[in-house]
């Protein structure tokens, strides 16, 4: 899922300075699952915003709502008009939701309530870890299912750098070297031959370096 976390309160107070009426808009998709922007986080941010404003002696009306998703046009339909009633809509969806509101809802001022950080897995309650970087050209069939793009600090394609020591990455002793993990996994799976193949220099265009990406499935187009 997409992982995000609430922006610092001072940043949110700053971007809403002088505003009298805002809507905090959550999303029940990824950000709800990673406890960054679902119903609960909407109520927490709204309450914190009211409290922050109270301390500075300025009144603000903060309304709360949560949509099923903010990345599908049908869910944003009501916001096209209702969003104009607010000085701003603070979206707690990932950056996709914020962008999509900006694209779809003319005349609605949308602000990001969270920082969108990575695609990750939920390791345990309250802990998420990056697993994929959306590179557009997946190589997990060659690497035992472990991603060298997202999980190697240098996104190396052909084995570890010289900083891999004792299975740890040189950037931090708490960070496992994914290439050590790939080596161990491929050895265990008896697929060591994958390590002998030289992966050519990666074409980063599918990763977004060729401009904004788009996907079309003709059979679904109306």
């Amino acid at each position, binding site marked *: 899922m997409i992982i995000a976390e609430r922006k610092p*309160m001072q940043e949110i107070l700053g971007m809403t300075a002088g505003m009298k009426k805002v809507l905090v808009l959550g999303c029940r998709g990824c950000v709800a699952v990673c406890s960054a922007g679902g119903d*609960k986080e909407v109520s*927490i941010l709204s*309450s*914190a915003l*009211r*409290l*922050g404003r109270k301390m500075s002696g300025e009144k603000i009306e903060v309304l709360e709502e949560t949509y099923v998703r903010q990345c599908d046009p049908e869910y944003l339909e009501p916001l096209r008009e209702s969003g104009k009633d607010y000085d701003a809509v603070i979206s707690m969806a990932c950056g996709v939701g914020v962008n999509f509101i900006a694209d779809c809802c003319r005349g609605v001022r949308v602000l990001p309530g969270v920082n969108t950080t990575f695609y990750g897995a939920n390791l345990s309650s309250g802990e998420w870890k990056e697993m994929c970087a959306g590179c557009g050209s997946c190589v997990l069939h060659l690497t035992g299912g472990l991603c060298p793009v997202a999980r190697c600090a240098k996104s190396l394609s052909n084995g570890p750098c010289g900083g891999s020591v004792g299975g740890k990455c040189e950037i931090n002793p708490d960070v496992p070297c994914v290439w050590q993990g790939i080596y161990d996994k491929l050895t265990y799976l008896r697929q060591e031959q994958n390590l002998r193949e030289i992966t050519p220099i990666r074409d980063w265009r599918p990763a977004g370096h060729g401009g904004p990406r788009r996907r079309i499935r003709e059979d679904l187009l109306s």
Partner: protein
Amino acid sequence: MVAEMSISDPKIIAFCCNYTASVDADALKAAGLVSENFELVRLPCTGRLEVVQILDALDNGAEAVFVTGCLVDECHNLTGSRRASKRVQYVKGILEELDIDPGRVEMFFAGRGETEPVVEAAREMKGRVTGMEPIHK
């Protein structure tokens, strides 16, 4: 004038579980153990307490909020008071972000049926906020 009143008798809201708050607030007030501005919210378990309830309490009139749950290793619901404690910590972080003294919220632990720790906590919180610039002016 209003500000002075709120400093001298600040509203304190306590969230307590059934096991740590067997005496109700009215009885404590009648006995003169807590001030008239003390409010006690009873929960089945402090683990049920949500972050937003503490923030809302501060937003809706309280100058300080405290939570009293079971002693950590004696929680009736095993981990309820531990969870509550983490949520109190989380709220302290938000208050710091808002430049509000995090000492306005606190977690206390008390043995089952003990009233004294709740009364003590109410005194402690009153002492902390007396002298602070009130939230509700």
